[in-house]
């Protein structure tokens, strides 16, 4: 994992002290709320429905155990004993006191963490594939470039006042777990026919009020140019992006209005002027950063572990969990472990301080002291020996972190919604809870198979509802919560936007509607056909007909 150098550490500490003084100025009345708001937002501090909310960056989802313990400490001492994992792979605290902020930021700085640029019209936390560096099918480890992008985008003097916020995601696998096509810039690391490493570059993707799938504007960008090319994109956007209307200010609108070809021409022109400049990455620099992500001290192990196989046979609960939560690792004898933070009937992504601490201990014991946060609001242990899986599972059970629903309907993405969020129009968490309860039976979930259900409490789509196979968005209709159902979205390499099926449902009605959709799918699917495939084959009609009645 990347470690701060002296400069980074000193800088973050200085910023914490500086914000502490700004908080004092606010509390003593030297700063008004209008003057203070942009400052607090640039440090990740929002004012939500019940209290201040602090968003702490987890760069491309990578955390070490000391950091997780510090987050647990903050939850326990300064919040109400829990945190919330977000779709930007960050952690949020919902009940923060402004007067505690100076201390909290110093605590965070002590473990190389902060909330800088987790809000505001700047480049936000870079997100990445949570299996980066370990996935069996990975082409290249994207973290090296995530880190280079993080350094480039942190306090970039030109890009601190963009027309609107800006999000970048990077993947290095064939399978897209980072939703790169729903980002302002999405980077897909791959190899060309000569075996050289480079990026396919997508721009103008995004969800929210006007969703778009990103357009590919360059099939192959040599890796040494990733900073200069992103700089060129940002320059074009910073100059031409609309600032007259907040709702039209994201790069997706610019790309859509001018067309991706015209946009890419401007980028190429800008890039031609800067590509050989200071941002060109010497191979030595790439290699220097790569060293931070060197593989841990793996043991030479056989691919199969006889004890693991025997334990699976002996313990059905373990077998179920292992079937659902494990993914193939690059190294023989190791597994990637998905840890669900969406237990049945509980808010997706919420994690208590005791769970954080317990999980940090597990990371130390079984995973070289590191862990990942996923955009699905879950956690991952990337490097567990197969022979340790049974012990790990027992400890996860004790922590309440052994739900076996990875990639199933119970593992929803869900934003905070009207239970916490000041922008919400409806609640979303209670729906996620009800849906996971409705489909609680693990056998039924397994029978339904791979499906992604995403929901948001308003059109801002923090819960990625447009790219859920089933998407739900809450709206306010005359002070009553109403939920719209959309089908056909995908967040993966075959990204697509869901389409609204028809009029919305109330809170109970939407849970029934989801069940109806699932039943139709089960009735009509071909053997081994996933939900999204059945939907793409049949289109919305069979679902519409059953939910709203066939047209006369």
């Amino acid at each position, binding site marked *: 994992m990347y470690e701060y150098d002296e400069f980074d550490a000193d800088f973050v500490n200085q910023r914490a002290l500086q914000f502490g003084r700004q908080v004092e100025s606010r509390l003593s009345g030297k700063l008004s709320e209008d003057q203070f708001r942009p400052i607090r937002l640039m440090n990740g501090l929002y004012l939500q429905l019940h209290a201040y909310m602090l968003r702490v960056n987890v760069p491309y989802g990578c955390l070490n155990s000391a950091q997780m313990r510090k987050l647990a400490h903050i939850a326990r001492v300064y919040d109400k004993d829990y945190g919330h994992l977000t779709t930007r792979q960050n952690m949020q605290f919902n009940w923060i006191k402004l007067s505690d902020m100076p201390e909290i930021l110093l605590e965070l700085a002590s473990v190389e963490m902060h909330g800088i640029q987790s809000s505001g019209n700047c480049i936000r936390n870079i997100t990445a594939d949570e299996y980066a560096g370990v996935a069996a099918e990975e082409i290249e480890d994207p973290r090296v470039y995530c880190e280079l992008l993080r350094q480039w985008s942190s306090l970039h003097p030109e890009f601190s006042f963009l027309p609107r916020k800006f999000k970048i995601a990077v993947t290095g696998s064939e399978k897209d777990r980072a939703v790169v096509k729903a980002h302002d810039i999405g980077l897909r690391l791959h190899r060309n026919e000569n075996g050289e490493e480079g990026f396919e570059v997508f721009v103008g993707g995004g969800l929210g009020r006007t969703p778009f799938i990103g357009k590919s504007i360059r099939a192959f960008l040599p890796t040494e140019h990733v900073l200069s090319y992103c700089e060129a994109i940002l320059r074009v956007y910073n100059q031409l992006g609309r600032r007259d209307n907040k709702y039209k200010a994201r790069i997706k609108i610019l790309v859509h209005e001018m067309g991706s070809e015209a946009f890419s021409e401007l980028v190429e022109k800008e890039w031609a002027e800067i590509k050989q400049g200071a941002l060109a990455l010497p191979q030595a620099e790439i290699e220097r950063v790569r060293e931070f992500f060197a593989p841990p001290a793996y043991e030479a192990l056989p691919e199969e572990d006889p004890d693991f196989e025997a334990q699976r046979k002996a313990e059905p609960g373990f077998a179920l969990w292992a079937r659902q939560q494990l993914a193939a690792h690059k190294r023989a004898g190791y597994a990637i472990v998905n840890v669900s933070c969406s237990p049945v009937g509980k808010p997706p992504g919420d994690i208590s301080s005791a769970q954080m601490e317990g999980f940090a201990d597990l990371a130390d014991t079984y995973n070289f002291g590191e862990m990942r946060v996923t955009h699905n609001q879950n956690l991952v242990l990337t490097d567990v020996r197969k022979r340790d899986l049974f012990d790990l599972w027992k400890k996860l059970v004790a922590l309440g972190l052994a739900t076996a629903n990875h990639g199933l309907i119970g593992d929803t993405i869900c934003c905070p919604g009207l239970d916490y969020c000041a922008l919400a129009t409806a609640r979303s*968490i209670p729906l996620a809870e009800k849906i996971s309860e409705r489909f609680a039976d693990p056998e039924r979930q397994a029978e339904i198979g791979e499906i992604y259900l995403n929901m948001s409490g308003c059109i801002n789509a923090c819960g990625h509802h447009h790219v859920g196979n089933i998407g739900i968005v809450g709206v306010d209709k005359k002070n009553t919560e109403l939920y719209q159902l959309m089908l056909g979205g995908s967040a993966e390499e075959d990204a697509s936007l869901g389409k609204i099926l028809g009029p919305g449902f109330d809170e109970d009605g939407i849970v029934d509607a989801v069940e109806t959709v699932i039943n139709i799918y089960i009735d009509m699917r071909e053997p081994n056909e996933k939900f999204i495939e059945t939907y793409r084959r049949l289109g919305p009609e069979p679902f519409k007909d059953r939910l709203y009645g066939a047209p006369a």
Partner: protein
Amino acid sequence: MQQVVIANRLTDGVVVFLGRNRCWVESLDDCPPTEQTDEASALLALGVKAEEEQEIVGPDLIEVASHQGTLVPVKMREAMRARGPSTRTDLGKQAGN
């Protein structure tokens, strides 16, 4: 229409209402609503002043109604603020913490 002034307290963000004796209180129960438009505007003006004096943030007039003997905000969003998250009834005002 009955109205009260709602805001977040500056120091900790806790939701407060403009209550008796023009003090900011944490519970709607301690907060007599007004039915007079003039009085409502005067109360909101007090809120604006309190914001200038660094006591609270975001003063706003909201509509409330009596429900089983207690006051509840009419709008869902404000009802949530007056109570706490519906998914964590062990937290917030509803739980007295």
